[in-house]
Every structure is written in structure tokens, then in C-alpha cells.
């Protein structure tokens, strides 16, 4: 149990998927203009990554048994694409406002490297089932934390008098960089 908690905290804070592994930057910068939309995006990513980690674990067992583990990437992409499609149709039906707000970034979770990154990391670290799921959830939760914080900062920054050369994307990049530096403080977390 203790080990699982360590995996989760490591994945979420110490090696935050966005801020120290630089995965999933696209949607991190793209959908972080409003906090509520960012929460929706984070929620979708949490669901997709957690389920994808679980499914990927069993699929990897199958691939391993047949000695064709080199197919892991392509099979994982299949699973992720299908999961994203399910999430998308779910949102379209039950949360149309969120579906509209997320726009193109929702189907883009398919190609979000964070999702595939977690699945492949799990395999590399030879995690067992629960470790995989917890690592997936922790990573996705780290993404959720990062994107919500960035959205919060951007909302406050919207009314600030940003110097003209830094308006738009540059100030967001700088904000993200400062956040990344702050997150590096977690590296000294004694666990």
C-alpha cells in the first residue's frame, strides 16, 4: 500500500507529466484559458489514462506471452483512440457544453503523448496491475493539477497589463516555465 502511495505521489508531483516530463503540452497550453474547462479536460484525461493503463497492462501480458512485445506502441494507440472516442460520445450526449468548450482538444487526447507515455512507462518499469493503474491515475492527476493551476493563473493574468511582446502565448509559456520551476521543489520531497 505504501509503495502504491509513493508511486502515485511521484507520478503526480515529483515527475509531473507536464512540468517535468514535458508530455501533453499541446492541450496543457490550449485548453487552459478557463478553470472549469480545464477541470473538464483534466477529468477526461484522468479517465482515459487510468483506464488505458489498466487495459494496456492486460494487453501487454498477451503480447508478452506471444513474444510480440514490439507491437506495444501500436496496440496501445488503438486502445487509447477507442477510449477517447467513448469519452467523446459520452460528453457529446451528457455534457454538451463541455464538449463544445473542449472542441478539438478532446479528440486530440488520442494523440496526447502523455497518455501513450504513461502506458509505455508502466511497461518499462515492469509495474504490476495495481501499480500501473495507480501510476496512470497519479500521472493524470498531476496533469489535472498542472492544467487547473495554469488556467487559474491565466484567468488572473487576463486583466494584467502584460508588455506587448509578451501578450498571448509568450506569457503563457513563461507562466508554465515558472510553474515547472516551482514543481521542481517537490524533487526534495522525502518519501
Amino acid at each position, binding site marked *: 500500500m505504501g509503495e502504491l502511495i509513493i508511486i502515485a505521489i511521484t507520478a503526480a508531483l515529483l515527475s509531473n507529466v507536464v512540468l517535468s516530463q514535458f508530455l501533453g503540452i499541446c492541450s496543457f497550453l490550449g485548453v487552459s484559458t478557463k478553470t472549469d474547462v480545464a477541470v473538464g479536460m483534466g477529468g477526461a484525461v484522468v479517465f482515459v489514462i487510468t483506464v488505458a493503463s489498466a487495459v494496456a497492462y492486460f*494487453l501487454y501480458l*498477451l503480447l508478452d506471452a506471444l513474444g510480440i512485445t514490439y507491437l506495444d506502441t501500436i496496440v496501445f494507440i488503438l486502445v487509447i483512440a477507442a477510449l477517447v472516442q*467513448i469519452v467523446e*460520445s459520452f460528453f457529446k*450526449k451528457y455534457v454538451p457544453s463541455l464538449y463544445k468548450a473542449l*472542441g478539438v482538444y478532446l479528440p486530440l487526447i488520442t494523440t496526447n503523448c502523455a497518455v501513450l507515455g504513461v502506458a509505455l512507462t508502466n511497461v518499462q518499469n515492469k509495474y504490476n496491475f495495481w501499480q500501473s493503474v495507480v501510476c496512470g491515475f497519479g500521472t493524470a492527476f498531476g496533469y489535472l493539477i498542472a492544467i487547473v493551476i495554469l488556467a487559474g493563473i491565466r484567468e488572473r493574468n487576463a486583466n494584467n497589463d502584460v508588455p506587448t511582446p509578451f501578450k498571448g502565448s509568450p506569457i503563457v509559456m513563461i507562466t508554465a516555465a515558472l510553474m515547472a520551476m516551482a514543481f521542481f521543489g517537490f524533487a526534495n520531497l522525502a518519501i
Partner: protein
Amino acid sequence: MFGIVLAMDVMNIVWATVVVGGVGLVLGLLLGVTGHIFAVEIDPKQAAIRGCLPGNNCGGCGFPGCDGLAAAIFEGTAPINACPVGGAAAAAAIAEVMGVDAGDVADVEGKKAFVKCKGSNDVATLNEKGRKVCTYGCIACGLCARACSFGAITVENGVAVVDREKCVGCGACAAKCPKKIIELVPESKTHVVACSNHQTAKEVKEVCKVGCLGCTLCSKKCPEGAITMEENLPVIDYEKCTNCGTCAESCRFKVIS
């Protein structure tokens, strides 16, 4: 031994095919089922409106793609003639779907993009690197040509040229132009100012043979008072312009044509 190696390879291929195909099949079935569970009913009317639109997804209407516009028209938040590409034909088709009369709304005129610069490499003064000295005109960067979904803009001899036959007036090029010299001009208006240089006559003379010197003759001659001078350049008010051609006649350098 060779046979064994071959057999193994074949089995590998078979397993790979079976696994990837099998996973794909299972996921496909799953998607089919969830697609039914989460099916969203789209009003056939909205689908019909979508069918009337061109489907280029150019964004010229200001909505995210043709689907976005179809939804907006269906909800009544956009007028039925909001598509600048489909024009009157699309508006009429949509009017039929919506059951309203197209006559009173469909007469909004289409627009054509116009590059406000005629300074090709033959007439503009070039520096030693072969680039134009004029800092206002077309720099032949080609962003407009790339932005055009309809192949209506080409860069010829150092200046962008719009093919009026192909142009649908979506405005994608105008948005991309780094010099902001592409204007959307009402389709029927034939007289446009083909220069963007705000400098004085002497300075313009030095950089281009077909530049506007800001002589103000056109604005004085215009019988409708549709031309005003702004920063050494004539600006035509297309609301007032009657296509009479007085401005083009008065222009000594044929900047207005």
C-alpha cells in the same frame, strides 16, 4: 533448420495480425455499442442545412467550420445567408430547408479579396538582395496563397494576385497577410486603390513606379464624394461608390483601375 526459422517468422506474423486485428475488432464493436448508447439525435433539419453548405470548413463565417454554422443557423443565432462562400445559392437552399423566404435576406452581396499593391518586381525598386524597398507593399511571402482553400491567390513576379473567378471572399488571406494589405471589396465594385504606401510623393517615387503619390485628384473628382484621403492614400467608401470610373480616369498612374 531453415524451415523452422521460416515457420517461426510466419507464426509471428500471424500472431501479430491476429492480436492487432482482434484488438481492433473488439474495440470497434465496443465503439459501435457505445455509439448507440450515447447517440445524440440531430434534428434532420440541421443535417439538411449542413448539406446546403459548401463543406470547405474555411471559417469565413466566423463559426468553427460548416458544422458550427449549421448548428447556429438551426438555432437561429446566425442568418441563413451567413456563409460568404455559398452566397445566394446556399442561402436559397437553406431558406427552403428552414421554410422562410430567401428573397429579403439573400441580397447581401458577396465580396472578393483584393491585394492593395501592384508593385511587381519590374516596377518596384529592389535593393541589392532583390527585395522591394517599399515597406508597405506586398512582400510576396505567400502566406495568403497558402491560407487560401480555393487556390485563388498566386504570387506572381513578386506580388500576390487574386483570381476573382476562384475567390469566394472568405477572408482567410486578409487575416494572414502580415502587411494587412488584402481588403475584401464588394463583388460589383470595380474600382480599387492598388497601393498601400502612406509615404509622401517623393518617397513613393523612389520605391515604386506604380505607387500612389497622394495627389488627391481622385477624391476631388469623385462626383459621389466617396473618396477620402487618409494618410496620403485615397480610401473608397463602397457604400457611396457607383462604379462611374471618374477616379480611374483621373489617376495619372493608374493606381485606381
